[in-house]
């Protein structure tokens, strides 16, 4: 979808698309050329892009890809659809906490370890945002806010452990 979105900005070649993707979205994991062309082939097959003019060059011919009306509609609906909320971490942690209480294990200690792991990651992201450009900063912010939300949940859960213990050990 990202490549399709980049093509809505302007018609582009595979090489330029990869470069733009790596600049803004890959964050240390460059997109393989093979994946770029496989994706473009699939988008063309599905009628979301077409191959425009072909430019001869020193190397292989450069195909310029152009988004279609159908492709643009798909980008539009993808952009307007909210991303699914991800309660996965809480679910795993919640399960651990409840099981720890059921098994009379130190749930608070487990949560403290999780808090330490979260804080370590937040420190890494803070270093990235302090030394990085605006794109790095915004991506680090996204991670930081999510981790912070998890920490709020951990803090609240620690405060509720005694009450939760009574509920799960009835």
């Amino acid at each position: 979808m990202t490549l399709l979105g980049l093509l809505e900005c302007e018609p582009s070649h595979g090489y330029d698309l990869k470069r733009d993707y790596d600049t803004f979205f890959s964050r240390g994991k460059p997109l393989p050329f093979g994946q770029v062309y496989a994706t473009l082939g699939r988008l063309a097959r599905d009628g979301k892009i077409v191959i425009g003019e072909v430019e001869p060059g020193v190397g292989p011919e450069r195909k310029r890809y152009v988004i279609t009306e159908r492709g643009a509609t798909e980008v539009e609906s993808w952009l307007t659809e909210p991303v699914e909320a991800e309660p996965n971490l809480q679910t795993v942690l919640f399960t651990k906490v409840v099981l720890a209480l059921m098994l009379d294990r130190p749930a608070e200690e487990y949560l403290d370890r999780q808090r330490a792991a979260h804080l370590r990651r937040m420190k890494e992201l803070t270093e990235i945002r302090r030394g990085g450009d605006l794109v790095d900063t915004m991506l680090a912010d996204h991670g930081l806010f999510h981790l912070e939300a998890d920490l709020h949940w951990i803090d609240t859960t620690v405060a509720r452990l005694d009450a939760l213990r009574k509920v799960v050990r009835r």
Partner: protein
Amino acid sequence: MKAIEAREVHLSFGETPALRGASVAVAPGEIVAIMGPSGSGKTTLLHCLAGILVPDAGEIHFDGRRIDTLNEHQRSVLRRDQFGFVFQFGQLVPELTAEENVALPLLLSGVKRAAALEQARPWFERLGLAGLQRRRSGELSGGQAQRVALARGLVARPGALFADEPTGALDSLTGEQVMDLLVASAREQGTTVVLVTHEARVAAYADRQVIVRDGKVNALVHS
């Protein structure tokens, strides 16, 4: 080597225990965040470390010297000459200009006015406050006032800076600017920092975090 240390500190307010055997050690130049729920004793611990409160039992050491046995006057001199402070609300003196506020610790230590202001001025450029030297606190935004408070906390090159919720009154972006400057300035001067915060994003700026819970320091959490 420890710059600041609390050993088994106990302190009660009337019948209510605030600290119940709290121990923590901070290395020279280290930035440590004290976290914990409301009422856990984190600010009380900070005040003990900074010589503001005297524990009922236990010891506080700064730079190899025991400070909880000093009398009120000696602790006052220690705070004035060795420590810097930043609080949640900048607590600038409203009658003074921003540069006079920054120069205040130097003036209180006996530095002549012209020399104190001379030392205060470079902080305005450093903290992005150029042109605001003559403003009074009522004419500064929250973020500007907090940066002035930060400059005041560091201007005398203290051995330790104690910060209690230094971004608590600021929005997230302004708070991060203040923390960026606090960390950069403290590192530049080699100042040891003890920071109390309930915000994980602020604590993430520290080298290490400790949690105070029920008046004790939880040593599990470290980076």
